[in-house]
Each structure stands twice: as structure tokens, then as C-alpha cells.
């Protein structure tokens, strides 16, 4: 009996040893490296054209990947997806100023679709060019983004797409388009077909709160950075009217337009008005007379001196609106315990140092606004995105005690 028991025990032992020897618990998940701080486990950026990566009047996969949120995510070491748009873009960026030619020979209405492989379930950069404060929480939107709203969001709102990513950290830069289109038009009141007008502060706050309420509903956000609105009156696309009297400027403008330009008597060397460079394009296209006036001329049917021109009163109104928005944004950031970043100081510093020129250098068709502003005179170029990202990193690290490394200067 004893021998029998030993044999059985031996047989069972062989079976069990074989079993144990074959057992292992190898896991080979291909996981991304952890972020520099768990706060950034899922980062989502909301906003408009700057955040989306719009440059030089266009957007494509290349410009999208130069945008500051991509750089932030890279420094945070967190996965980040964008709605990659096929080259040459939608529309293709301008590649020569002031002729306005575009990459790939495209036009302002050229629009290529999303790339076939860019369809992602989770989108981290949900910003849409043209978006104003009303858009992030609205399923219909203002239409400012045109087809890009659909191409990027696919039938959802920025807030909805953001929540799909279960964000732990968000950046929000919205509000520029609450003043920019009106400022560019030179007409600050809402005039159908001419200007959407400047969003009132009350409406802006209502829109902003609706966006934040929607984001809070997700219950996953642990922190964020709110970014102030740019004082668009300082955008290089506007040049000061007194420059018309500087040597060589008017001839250069006439060369760009291809016709002689008449400077109205409302323009003097001391005029405080600023003029949108797009006026030249309108002249070239024949939709504006070849005359520059610096104040709205009475009884002038085509808005001469009004459209594309901001006088001192209008500049002050724009600045006041932006200051009101930013006071609210900063207050909101403070109340939420989030970081706040006002880009105006940095942009003003670049302007003062001459790195953002007061007048575009028309002899530099690929870099008329310097290294920091792209060829449309409005949107930051790649170098500015690096600068902005580093300043945001400072603000975030200061607010949260994190250690996001800075980017190398371009």
C-alpha cells in the first residue's frame, strides 16, 4: 500500500510540476511612457484658429503640428491627437506675401478632407478655426469655422469631443474671434454681410460659463490653464495710417495692388487710425476703391474710411472689450484654482523690440511679419508657438508646482 501511494503521489507530482513550470504571467502592453505629472494624463485643448494650428491664412497637417498645444503635450509627455488635415490644407496656407499665393496652387476656398488615417476615436486638440466664445458648447455654432467645424469635430461640439477624451487637464483659448472679425472689418457693430460685431462682455461671460459648465459635467478635469484674449488691434495685419507718409511705403503698396492709390485727406501723419492690410487685397480684387481714407466718410456708400479701418475710438472700444474679457477669464481661473496666461504682454514686447514689425517688409515675401507672425499678419508662426508654449509652461508650473520642461528656443 505504501508503494502504491508513493507511485500515485509521484504521478500527481509530475503533472503538477509540469503545470507550474508552464505557468507564467507575462504582460507585454505597449504603454506610452507616463506624463511628467499625473495631472496631464489626458490633456485636451479647446480654442480657435491659433490653438488649431492655423497659420498664414490656412491650415494643414504641418501647421497643426506646430501649434502650441502639440508642443505642450510633447513637454508634458502625454499622448495627443489632432484632426490631421491633408496637405495642402483647408485652405492651403499662403506661401507668398502680398501676392497671396497658396501652397499647392490652392485658393482661399480650396479645402482638402481629413486624411484617411486621421480618424481617431479620441481627439485631444478640439479647437476649431473661426470659433468664438459661443461655439465650444453649441452644436450648431456661428459658422465661423466653415467646413472645418465638421472636419475637426465631426458633428459634435468642442466640449463633447473634449469629454470623449476624459481630460484631466485642459487649456482654453477662446474669445479672439469675439472681436477679431469685427475689428478686421472695421465695423464694430453687427452689420449682416459686413461684420458680426463685437460680442458684449455679458454675452461673452455667458458663453464662457456655458463652456466651463459643460466641461465640468465630465467630472474628470483636475486642472487647466485659461488664456486671455489677444488685443487684436495690435495684430500686425493692421498698419498705422501715418506709415502712409513714410518714404517708400505708398509706392510699395501701389506695387502690391497694381494700381495707383489715392490717400484721402482724412489721413494725416498724426492720424491714430490703423488700416487692415486686407484692404489692399480688396483693392486688388476690385471690391474696394483704390482710395485709403482714415475716418468714415459721410455719405460714402462703399464704407470708405470705415471698412478695414479702425479709428482711435474703435481701437479703444476693441481694447476695452478685450480687457473686459480678460478680467473675467482671469477671475474665472482664480476661482477655479487654474493657471492664467495673458499673451498680450509677450506680444507687446515682441512688437516693441521690433521682432514683430509695425509694417510688413514687402521685400520679404515669405517672412514679411518676421519670425513670429505668419503670412496672414494675424496668426502666430511656429516660433511664436514655441514662445507661447514656454510661457504657458511657466504659468502651469507656477500654479501647480509641476515640472514641465521648457522647449528649446527656436
Amino acid at each position: 500500500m505504501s508503494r502504491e501511494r508513493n507511485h500515485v503521489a509521484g504521478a500527481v507530482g509530475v503533472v503538477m510540476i509540469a503545470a507550474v513550470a508552464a505557468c507564467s504571467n507575462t504582460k507585454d502592453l505597449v504603454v506610452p511612457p507616463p506624463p511628467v505629472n499625473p495631472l496631464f494624463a489626458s490633456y485636451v485643448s479647446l480654442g480657435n484658429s491659433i490653438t488649431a494650428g492655423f497659420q498664414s491664412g490656412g491650415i494643414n497637417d504641418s501647421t497643426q503640428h506646430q501649434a502650441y498645444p502639440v508642443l505642450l503635450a510633447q513637454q508634458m509627455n502625454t499622448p495627443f491627437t489632432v484632426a490631421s488635415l491633408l496637405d495642402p490644407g483647408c485652405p492651403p496656407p499662403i506661401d507668398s506675401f502680398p501676392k497671396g499665393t497658396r501652397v499647392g496652387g490652392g485658393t482661399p476656398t480650396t479645402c482638402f478632407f481629413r486624411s484617411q488615417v486621421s480618424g481617431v476615436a479620441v481627439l485631444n486638440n478640439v479647437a476649431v478655426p473661426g470659433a468664438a466664445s459661443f461655439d465650444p458648447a453649441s452644436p450648431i455654432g456661428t459658422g465661423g469655422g466653415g467646413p472645418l467645424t465638421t472636419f475637426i469635430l465631426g458633428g459634435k461640439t468642442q466640449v463633447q469631443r473634449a469629454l470623449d477624451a476624459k481630460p484631466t487637464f485642459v487649456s482654453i483659448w477662446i474669445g479672439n474671434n469675439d472681436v477679431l472679425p469685427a475689428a478686421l472689418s472695421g465695423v464694430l457693430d453687427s452689420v449682416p454681410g459686413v461684420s458680426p460685431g463685437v460680442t458684449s462682455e455679458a454675452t461673452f461671460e455667458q458663453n464662457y460659463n456655458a463652456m466651463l459648465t459643460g466641461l465640468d459635467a465630465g467630472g474628470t478635469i483636475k486642472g487647466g490653464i485659461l488664456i486671455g484674449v489677444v488685443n487684436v488691434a495690435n495684430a500686425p495685419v493692421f498698419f498705422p495710417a501715418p506709415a502712409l507718409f513714410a518714404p517708400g511705403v505708398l509706392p510699395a503698396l501701389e506695387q502690391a495692388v497694381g494700381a495707383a492709390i489715392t490717400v484721402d485727406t482724412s489721413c494725416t501723419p498724426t492720424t491714430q487710425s490703423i488700416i487692415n492690410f486686407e484692404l489692399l487685397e480688396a483693392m486688388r480684387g476690385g471690391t474696394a476703391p483704390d482710395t485709403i481714407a482714415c475716418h468714415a466718410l459721410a455719405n460714402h456708400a462703399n464704407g470708405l474710411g470705415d471698412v478695414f479701418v479702425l479709428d482711435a475710438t474703435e481701437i479703444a472700444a476693441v481694447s476695452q472689450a478685450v480687457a473686459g474679457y480678460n478680467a473675467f477669464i482671469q477671475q474665472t481661473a482664480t476661482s477655479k484654482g487654474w493657471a492664467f496666461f495673458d499673451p498680450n504682454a509677450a506680444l507687446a514686447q515682441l512688437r516693441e523690440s521690433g521682432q514683430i514689425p509695425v509694417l510688413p517688409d514687402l521685400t520679404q515675401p515669405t517672412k514679411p511679419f518676421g519670425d513670429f507672425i505668419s503670412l496672414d499678419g494675424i496668426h502666430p508662426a511656429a516660433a511664436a508657438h514655441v514662445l507661447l508654449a514656454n510661457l504657458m509652461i511657466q504659468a502651469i508650473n507656477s500654479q501647480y508646482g509641476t515640472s514641465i520642461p521648457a522647449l528649446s528656443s527656436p
Partner: protein
Amino acid sequence: MTVLRAPTLAMLLALGAAHGAHAQGFQLNELGTCAVARGQAVTASPCKDPSVIYWNPAAAASLEGWSIYAGAAAIRVGGGFTADTSRRVFDGNVPVSVPPHVFVNYGSRDDRWAAGLGVYVPYGLTSQWHSDFPGRFEALKASLTTVYVQPNVAYRFAPNWEVGGGPVFGYSTVELRQSLDLAQQQVSPGLTFGQLGVAAQTEFARAKLSGSGTAFGFNVGVHGALGADWEIGARYLSQLDFHYDNADATFSQVPTNLVLSAGNPLGLPAGTPVDALLSTEFVPGAPLSAQKVSTRIKHPAQFQLGLGYSGILNTRLEGDFEWTQFSSFDQLPIDFSGPASGQSRTLLEDYQNSWSIRVGAEHAFAVGIKGRVGFTYVKSPAPDETVTPLLPDMNRRNYTVGFGVPLSPRYTLDAAYLHVDTSGRRGRIVERTSANQTALDLNSGFYTLEANVFSLSIRANF
């Protein structure tokens, strides 16, 4: 406006094979509780019950008189999928399945011949996931049940040597459910909703397929003794080629709640619900209307060779090698006969032949109780490119234990427990659309798998 297609329905059919958690591929081995307890190493030294009709048809000749063996195995499958990027874990949602088996045999009193019938489920089971599983566009649920009915005759042609076998009639049913991804659908030829910005994995419909098929084959075996203490046995179950003709494919719309914004590229008014646009694709005659579809799934051939030893008092030991011809599951023709007929195609599976090593032991205790243990190592037939939500197959280690208790001179109760252990395996949750796509291109996470099986059977002798 839209040119929707039913491409992923193909995957439903393509993987008409469900998840066999405790064998290779979609093979089941829970055919008799005694065999389960012994690690399915029972070809040479068979269990003394009519389940030998499956395990070695020849050994039925050694069973005297009438004997009936009936039971079932409750199979509980666990496991899930962990996504690489998010590291989120998605657990499976597989219900407990209980495949039954019934065997009846009559053996002559002189042990020279026997005749019997077996009804068993050698292939089948279910894979099922929760509705938020990102791989639901590959498979949300798949249920396959294939029943083999096998008349059997065994004959002792020499002292201690028998042959046996019989034809096999197979009946298979399949039910498959899958989510459809709007981002993959075409708005117009060459342009997908995904290119218009619709997020990947936007579920807009669910497809359901149900069908059945029949097939014929055979199962044969040989069994003999090599001296006083050694036995040898082998069996071969042929391939059964099931044709699921006239299967029903139906589609139901799932709200996306997407809304077209102002300035949308379709030129439609702002606020237009996308679901309203899609609803026209589900009406009769539209691409996603009810239609017929057919395919075929070859249930692989099996071969098992075993060597048994009974030189230890009251104890039987056995080791088996088993081979399954899963290379027959290399591709699947998918033929739609409705509005989606233009989407007919052939899917790549590229399964390979698989094998398993099985060892088991049985000891008869003095009071008539028999104790059993076993172990099986199973090599997966699925290549690295075909580890999918529908069949996340992987190498397995099966540990078994059980006992047999005589309830009366005529009745015996067998019980067995089987635990399936794996190391997990990388796999994919998206469709493989080209033979050029490698596992590195496709796999985006890690599948885990375990299973617990409880089997009970009653044996009656008359």
C-alpha cells in the same frame, strides 16, 4: 447621399467561430466528465463509459451491455482587453454556457462488438463584450453551437485490439452581433465619414446575423494493448465543412446624436441631425436593409494519439498528443445576396495547425471512488495577426481534477473541475484589411483569458 456599405458584416461571418476558452481555437473538449478530469488524455486508456464513442470509437467494444452516459459542463469564461494607450481595461461579458453530451452504447457480452450513438458539441461557445468595448466593431457577440451526432460501431478484431468508428452528422447554428462604425462608411465613393471628421468608433448601427448549416464527416479509432501494462490508442475525426447558406443579416440603427454645424461641407442647414440622414439607409432595398448572406466554416479535423500505463496498482496513467487541422480556417468567403452584394469578399484568417500535449491519471480507491487529475498544454492556432475580440485565442494551460462516485451498482456520478490559465496575448480590435498588415501594425492591446469549467455526468449500466 450616402453610399453606406456593410463591410464589417463580413467580419461577423468571417469569425463565425466562437470563443472556446479551454481548447484551441473554437474547439471544445468537455465531452464526458471523466475525460475532462483526466486532462482529456483518454485515447489509449479510455474512461469506462460510452464517451469513448468520441474519444476513441474503437474502445466502445470493451463496454458490456447497455450503458448510457449523460451530462453537461458549465463553462465560465473570464478575461478582457487592456488598451495600450489608455491602459483602460475592458472586461468580457461572456455568459455561462452549458454544452451537453449524451452517449449510448450496447456492447456484446463477449466484448467482440459494440454499437452506439453519441451526441456531443465538439466546437462552439460564445464570445461577448460590453457595449462600450472599442472592439465591438469587430465583434460584440458571437455564438456558435455545433452538434455532432455520431452512430458508432466497434469491433474486436484480435485479442485486446479493437477498431471502431462511424459517420458524423453535424448541425451548426451561429448568431453574431457587431457594431458598425460610421467613420468607416462612405459618404460617396472614395470618401468616408471619417474624412469628414466623424470620430472613429462612432456607432451608428448594429448588425445581427443568424444562420445554420449542416455537414457530414466521420470519426474512427483504434485501440490495443501492448503487453500487460501498456495500452495505445488513436482517433481521427474528419473535417466537417459547414455551409451557412441563406443566413439572415439584419441591421438596427443606433443614434449618434451628431448634428451638422453651420458651414458644414455637405451644404445642409445647420442643426441637421446626422441620424435623420442615415435613417434612409435602413429602409427596404437600402444597403443596410435585411438581406441574405452566406459563408462556410470548416470545422477542423482532429487526430489524437495516446499511450497508457496501468502497471501501478489501481492506477492508470496516460499521455496524449493531439493535433487539430486549423489550417483549414485560413480564409472565409463572404457572399451577400442583397443590396450589399457588391461587398462580397474573402477574409484572411491564416490559422495554423495546432496541437496539445495531454497527461492524466486515475486512481481507484478501495471504496470504489476514483480520483482523477490531468494537465493539458494547448498551442494556439491563431497567428499574431488574428487575435481578435471574437476569438482572442492564445496558448493555454488546463489543470483538471475530478472524481467518480458509485451511487449504486448501476449508477455512477462523475464530477470534474477544469481551470484554464493563460499568459495573455497581444491582439487587435480593428479589422485586418490587407495581408500586408502585420501584428505590429494591427495589435493595440493585450487580451487576457481564463476559464473555469464544472462538469457533471451520470453513467448508467444495464
